[in-house]
C-alpha cells in the first residue's frame, strides 16, 4: 500500500497497512546497512532538524545516523544549549528553524502532543521521537520489526510488556502497533504503574508476573522511569526487583523459545538480571540495529508523503 502521510506523529492514527509498509521498507534499509557503502542519496539536499528538547542519547544518535545514511543535511538542537533556555517558545523556535528551510523536524519533547502542535503550525514534515508519556512511534515500529523478523509474524503472538506502563510512551505505542497487527498483549507491573484502564486499549492487565510471562512468546521489559515518577508509586527499587524483575528463577518458568526485549537504557539488576540481558534470548542489541533501519524507512516514506500522490508510470 502506498504511504501518503507527511508526518509520523503517533501509532494510534496509523492503519495496520501503514505499519506493514514501514516494516517492509525498513527491511530494504536494513540491507543497506549491511553493505560496504552504507549511504544512499534518497534525502540529498534535504535538511533535517533534530529538536531534542528532552534529553536522549540512543534515539538521537539513531536518528542522526539514519539521516546521514540518507544523505540529508543535519542540524542538532538540544535543550541544554539553546534559546529555549532563554525563554523562547517552542513555536518560535520551530518557526526559526523552518526559516532555515528545514524539510523535516524530528522532535523529542516532555509535553505530550508537542509534535502534533508543530505539525499544525509548520510546513515541514514532523517526526515524533517521543512526546511525554504519550507515544514513541519509531520505538514501537522497531520493536514490531524485530519481533516480525524473529518470528515471521505478529498475529497471534503472546506479547507481555512488563514494567512501568503508566509513564511509558513506549508501552502506549507498542500496544497500538502490536494490537493493530493482531498480537495478544498482556501488561504487567505494580498496580500503581499498570492501572486497569489499559484494558480499554485492547490488552490484558495482570499484576502477577509469573502468570504474565508463562505463555509469552516475547517479553518486553520497560525501564522504571525515575524521572517521571512520584515517590509514592512503589516502595523501593529493591522491592520492584524482587516482585517484577526478570531473574534466573523466573526465566526457568518461561517458554523455551521466548525472547526478551528492552528499549534501553537498561538498569542492570533492576528490571533485568545482567546475565539475561547478555543472553542468547536477548534482542536488545538487534533492536538498536533495527532502529536505524526503521528510522531510515520513516524518513524515506514521509519524504514521499509530501508530494502529489501520483505513482509515475514505468
Amino acid at each position: 500500500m502506498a504511504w501518503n502521510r507527511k508526518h509520523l506523529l503517533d501509532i494510534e492514527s496509523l492503519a495496520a497497512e501503514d505499519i506493514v509498509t514501514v516494516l517492509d521498507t525498513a527491511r530494504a534499509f536494513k540491507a543497506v546497512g549491511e553493505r560496504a557503502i552504507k549511504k544512499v542519496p534518497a534525502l540529498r539536499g534535504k535538511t533535517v532538524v533534530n529538536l531534542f528538547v528532552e534529553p536522549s542519547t540512543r534515539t538521537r544518535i539513531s536518528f542522526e545516523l539514519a539521516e546521514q545514511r540518507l544523505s540529508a543535511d543535519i542540524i542538532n538542537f538540544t535543550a541544554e544549549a539553546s534559546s529555549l533556555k532563554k525563554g523562547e517558545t517552542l513555536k518560535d523556535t520551530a518557526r526559526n528553524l523552518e526559516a532555515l528551510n528545514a524539510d523535516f523536524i524530528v522532535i523529542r519533547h516532555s509535553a505530550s502532543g508537542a509534535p502534533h502542535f508543530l505539525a499544525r503550525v509548520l510546513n515541514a514534515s514532523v517526526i515524533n521521537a517521543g512526546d511525554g508519556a504519550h507515544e514513541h512511534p519509531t520505538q514501537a515500529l522497531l520493536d514490531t520489526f524485530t519481533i516480525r523478523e524473529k518470528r515471521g509474524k505478529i498475529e497471534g503472538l503472546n506479547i507481555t510488556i512488563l514494567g512501568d506502563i503508566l509513564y511509558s510512551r513506549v508501552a502506549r505505542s507498542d500496544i497500538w502497533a502490536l494490537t493493530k497487527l493482531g498480537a495478544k498483549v498482556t501488561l504487567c507491573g505494580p498496580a500503581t504503574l499498570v492501572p486497569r484502564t489499559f484494558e480499554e486499549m485492547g490488552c490484558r492487565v495482570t499484576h502477577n508476573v509469573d502468570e504474565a510471562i508463562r505463555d509469552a512468546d516475547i517479553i518486553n521489559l520497560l525501564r522504571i522511569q525515575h524521572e517521571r515518577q512520584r515517590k509514592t508509586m512503589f516502595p523501593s527499587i529493591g522491592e520492584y526487583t524482587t516482585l517484577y524483575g526478570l531473574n534466573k528463577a523466573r526465566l526457568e518458568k518461561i517458554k523455551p523459545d521466548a525472547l526478551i526485549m528492552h528499549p534501553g537504557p537498561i538498569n542492570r539488576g533492576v528490571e533485568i538480571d545482567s546475565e539475561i540481558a547478555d543472553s542468547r534470548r536477548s534482542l536488545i542489541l538487534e533492536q538498536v540495529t533495527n532502529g536505524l533501519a526503521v528510522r531510515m524507512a520513516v524518513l524515506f516514506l514521509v519524504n514521499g508523503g509530501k508530494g502529489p500522490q501520483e505513482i509515475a508510470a514505468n
Partner: protein
Amino acid sequence: MSETTVILNAQAIQRALTRIAHEIAERNESGTDVVLIGIPEGGVPMARRLGAILKEIWHHSVPVGTLDVSMHRDDLDQRAAPTVHPTIVPFDVTGKTVVLVDDVLFSGRTTRAAMDALNDFGRPRRIQLAVLVDRGHRELPIKADFVGKNVPTAPAEKVHVRIAESGTTDEVVLEKK
C-alpha cells in the same frame, strides 16, 4: 474503460528473450565476465529467464542479481514513496560486464538511478542495458544495447508487462488513455 492492446504474447516474449540472449552472447563472447542484474519488478524474472537461456548458450551458469533503485530515484519528493524491493547482489561487480535488465525503457530515469545504485557495489568494467520494450520518450541521454521490441507510444499511454519465471501467462499490454 480504457482501450488495451496486447503487443507481445507469451511466445513473442520468449522469442524476444532468446534473441536478446543471443545478442548478449555475440557481444560478450565467452561470457565468463558477464553478470545479469534485474531491476524490480519486471526486470527480475526477465533477468532470470535470460540467465537460463545464456547458460545453454555458454554452457556455464551466469550470476543473476536484483538491484532496487528506489533510493536513488530523482523524484522522491514529488511522488508517494515507491515500494522498496530487496536488493540481492551476491557477487562482486568490479571488473565485470554488468547487463542491467528492465522490462520497459521510458524516460531513462530508472536506468540512471540503477547506474548510480550499482556504483555502491563496485566498479564494473562496463554496463550494458537490455529491455523487453523500448517505448520512447527519453528524458536522458540513455540508449538500450538490447531491445526486445520498439513500441511507439503516446506519453499518457501505459505499458504493462506481465512476466513470470514460468513464462506461460506472459504478455505485454498497451493501455491507451
